[in-house]
Each structure stands twice: as structure tokens, then as C-alpha cells.
């Protein structure tokens, strides 16, 4: 973690139970401004639930502090100016123009009758450039491809201009170039002092573009640290049940899954 930057998000003993099932147990997690943190873990490990808890959308035990404020003390309105959440389920219900979709990201900053958002136009323009959707501005979002819609929704969350951005599998379904350019966009907004938590399934993408990775396994944190030190063959076999070939180049580790672990076969 970057010691010079203030803590944006921290949890202590965070647990979430959905129905009879404990989904998260004893999560102690912290993230500073300026960081891009990758959230890894197999399906059902609790990645989306952790993101929802940080976004204030599920009941939890333990404590969550966002920008120094207790999650329970934040109103929905106040939270929307601190935390942006890009959910995994991508929905655009009406054939809204792309620029309208991105503009809705400014909703928390708008006063009565849409007034009082002086930064709105600039924030939207920047967000659309970062997500590479500027050329789509006038198109109806529902007529775009799945990957393009994903980028439009990412631009919507970036335009919200909150200190904390939680993105749940934002690159799923994107072509390799746009996966990398969206990760680059997250790095850029982090460099401007925002904290970005992004859940991913692509291990190499996480290793190369995240400052730090947190690996969840069965609702607990299995590892937390710099990608090169965390993503070991041993951990990947234990958590993901896969055998991985590990290479290194000057940019960091390259992980190639090559088979299932012995006890899976």
C-alpha cells in the first residue's frame, strides 16, 4: 500500500451472511488513494459480495470505513459522492444515447432540475475519452456491442468522479486491446488520487496492471500483496485448482494456466 496516500477504504472483521450461508468472514482490508487493487478469486469466493458491501448494498457485520466515515453513517446521497459502483450485471434499459448514459453518472452532483453541476461536462468528456467511447457519443447505447456497452457503463462510473471506484469484472467480454486500455484508464484515475478496486479473472491482466492484488478464497482473504509475491504457483493451485506456468519479463509476471490441479482430475 502507498504509505503517503490517505486510506480510502478499510474494513475490520467484515462478515456477510446471505441466507444460511456465510459469504464473507473476517475480512480485514484496506486501500489507499492512488492505488489500483485487483480482487481475484474463483467463482463464488465472495468478490461481488465484498464489492457490494463496500458499496453499501448488503447488510454486514464488522466495520467498514469509507474516506474515514462509518458505512452505517453514510446516507445514500452522501455515499454516491464518495463511492461509484460498476456492477457486474450490465444493464441499459432504454435506447439512451451514449452521452446521456455517461451524463447520468453526474446524477449525485446535480441539484434540483439538473442544475448546479459545473464540472459535469468536463468530467463526462474525460470519462468518455478514458473509456474510449467518445466516438460513440450520439449512438443509442442499446445498439452497441456488449464490449462497447461495458465501456460506456465504465465511463458512466468514472464520470461519477468519486474518490473510490468499485468495478465488478469490468473487462469481461472486452477485446484484449480494450481490456488493457480500460485497466490503463483505471491507472490514470488512480494517479489522480482515486482508489480503484477491480475484480478480475485474468491473472496476467491483474499482475501487470494492478499495484496490489487481494485473493479471496471461500469468503476469506487468502493473500494480499504485490502481484509478483502473491501470485505463486502454490497459491494458484490451492485457491484456483489450476497449474500455472509462470514467466517473468521486465513488466512483471506472466501467468499461463496449463492444467487442472491433481485433485480436480
Amino acid at each position, binding site marked *: 500500500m502507498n504509505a503517503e496516500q490517505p486510506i480510502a477504504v478499510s474494513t475490520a472483521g467484515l462478515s456477510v451472511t446471505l441466507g444460511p450461508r456465510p459469504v464473507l468472514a473476517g475480512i480485514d482490508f484496506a486501500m489507499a488513494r492512488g492505488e489500483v487493487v485487483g480482487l481475484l478469486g474463483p467463482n463464488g469466493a465472495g468478490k461481488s459480495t465484498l464489492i457490494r458491501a463496500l*458499496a453499501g448494498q448488503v447488510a454486514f457485520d464488522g466495520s467498514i470505513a469509507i474516506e474515514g466515515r462509518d458505512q452505517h453513517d453514510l446516507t445514500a446521497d452522501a455515499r454516491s459522492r464518495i463511492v461509484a*459502483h*460498476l456492477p457486474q450485471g450490465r444493464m441499459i*434499459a432504454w435506447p439512451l444515447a451514449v452521452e446521456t448514459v455517461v451524463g447520468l453518472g453526474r*446524477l449525485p452532483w446535480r441539484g434540483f432540475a439538473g442544475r448546479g453541476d459545473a464540472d459535469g461536462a468536463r468530467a463526462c468528456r474525460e470519462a468518455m475519452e478514458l473509456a474510449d467511447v467518445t466516438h460513440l457519443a450520439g449512438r443509442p447505447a442499446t445498439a452497441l456491442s456488449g464490449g462497447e456497452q461495458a465501456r460506456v457503463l465504465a465511463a*458512466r462510473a468514472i464520470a*461519477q468522479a468519486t474518490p473510490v471506484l468499485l468495478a465488478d469484472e469490468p473487462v469481461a467480454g472486452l477485446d484484449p486491446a480494450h481490456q488493457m486500455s480500460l485497466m490503463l484508464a483505471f491507472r490514470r484515475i488512480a494517479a489522480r488520487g482515486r482508489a480503484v478496486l477491480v475484480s478480475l479473472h485474468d491473472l496476467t491482466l491483474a499482475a501487470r496492471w494492478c499495484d496490489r492484488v487481494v485473493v479471496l478464497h471461500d469468503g476469506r482473504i487468502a493473500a494480499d500483496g504485490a502481484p509478483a509475491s502473491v501470485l505463486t504457483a502454490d497459491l494458484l493451485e490451492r485457491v484456483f485448482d489450476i497449474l500455472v506456468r509462470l514467466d517473468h519479463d521486465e513488466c512483471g509476471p506472466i501467468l499461463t494456466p496449463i492444467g487442472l490441479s491433481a485433485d480436480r482430475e
Partner: protein
Amino acid sequence: MISRLNIILAASVLILAALSLLVGPAALGPGESLSAIFSSDGGTAALIMREIRLPRALLGVLIGASLGLSGAALQGFLRNPLAEPGIIGVSSSASLGAVLVFYSGLAGASLLALPAGALVGALAAMLALIGFSRGNTATLTLILAGVALSSLAGALTSLALNLSPNPFASYEIIFWLLGSLKDRSMEHVWIALPLMLAGWIMIAVSARALDALSFGEEAAASLGVDVGRARLLVVGGVALSVGAATAVAGAIGFVGLVVPHLVRPFTDRMPGGLLLPSALGGAALLTAADIAARLIRPAGELNVGVVTALIGAPFFLWLVAHSRREVQS
């Protein structure tokens, strides 16, 4: 906020309402009709205008606006272009309330018994819906509970028809269920107006939430929208305004479904921005349909609910075919 679309629609509402004042079996010239509304001589013309045509024109505008607004609000809230006020069971429950008043013979006791029965039905449906739709899966529950309530109210209405004491009572019930603005008085306007206004305000307050809900409930919540509160406002607003509409005019279908689709292409398609044009469009459409109902068959006029269904159902089919083509291309 005041777009050109809204100005055009508002002007159409005014023109159609004025035309509505001019249509009727009594042979009154246009000038004579309009001046009679404001005259103080208490003559036949004034009586016809104030007691018969004015309440009819006002109710056409108010009910049409309520139906259009409710349809737009429900389509936005449920993110479903097929949603309409009937889907959450409020209009069928209001109908059931009115039918029970017919059935019990209370309808003859007072002019207000029928609307009161319908309002009780609508409020009961609203409370049931709010009771059912709590927690995480509330929106899905809302639709399912609405469909169930709607079928239950329909079944009980049929039961009342089956058990009805004499054929004349059944005839009266069926006729009322078709929806009409005929022979309504200013009392009906005063019953409906406050409830409709309250419902309109509740829906208007939820406009911002409807915009955010375009991205689903999770994303809307992260934009600062209290989805539970929006649900209460929309369900309550629709129940009050459509309940009041059904109470004074019976069940008038298709206006709430069709109008948002008619005006949507002329807007930026934001659900919140669609509310005002849908209200104005609904007022214009129902007033026009009510004029048509009187002109097509002047002797024994058509029920306006029949006219709206005759316009609405083919349009709906066209819509289904059209949207399928859009998906395919």
C-alpha cells in the same frame, strides 16, 4: 424542462378539451357553448355545459393524464416496455370494489357509493403490494404479486357476475367495467382530483430515481437513489391516481400502455423526462377517444374504454412486430 414537445402536447390537450365541450346531443353553437360556461343566467345552455359537458371534458383530461403518467412511471420503474397501470392489479382491484358495490345494491343508495367502493379496492391492492414487495427481490415480487392480485380481482369480479341476483345487475356491472365518461358530474371531479394530484406529485418526485434505474437497481443505488423509497412512491402514486380514475370512470385500458410508446421517440428516452409528455399525451388521447365515442354513434354512444381498446390493441400488435424487427436487424 419545457420542451417543444410538451408545448405542442399541452396545446393539443387544450384544443381537444375545448372540442370536447362542443360535442353533445344538445344543439348548441360553439360560441353559445363556450360562453354558457361562464354565464350566470342559469339557463338550459349553462346547465348543460356546467353539469354535463364540463365535468366530462375535465375528467377526460384528468383521467387520461393519470393513465399516461402511471404507464410511463411503471415502465420506467420496472424497466419493462410492456408495463401498464393494470399490471400491478390496481385497476382490477378498483373495479372489483365497484362491482361489489353494484352487487350489494349499495350503488343506488348514493352517487358516492360506487367511487368509494372502487377507492377501497384500489387502496387494499396498494397496501397488499407494499406489504409483499419488501427486501432484495422486491421488484420481481411486485410484478408477480400484481399479476396475482389482478387475476384474483378478475376472478372475484366474474364470481360476482355469476352470482348476480338478476340479469340487469350483471348488465350494469359489465357496462361499468367497459369504462365510460358519460353522465359524470362535478362531484366526480372533486372526488378524483385531490387523489390524482397526490398521486401525480408522488410520481413526479421519483423522476430522478427512474432515470437512474435505467441501469438496474444496484447501479441506481450507487447513484444515490433509495430504490425502496422510489418503489413506494411509484406504487403509491399509481394506486392513488389510477384508483381514483377507475373509481369515477371504470376500467379504461391501453392508454397507460400505448401513450409512453407514442411519445418516447420524440424525447431523449430518459424515463424521468418521459413523465410529463406521457401525462399530456394521455390527456389528449383519452379526450380524443371520448369525442370519437360520442361522434361515431351519437344515439347510443360507445364506451370510451371500448374505443381506447380498439385503438390500443392493434397498435400494440404493431409495436410487438416492430420491436421484434428492431431486435433482429
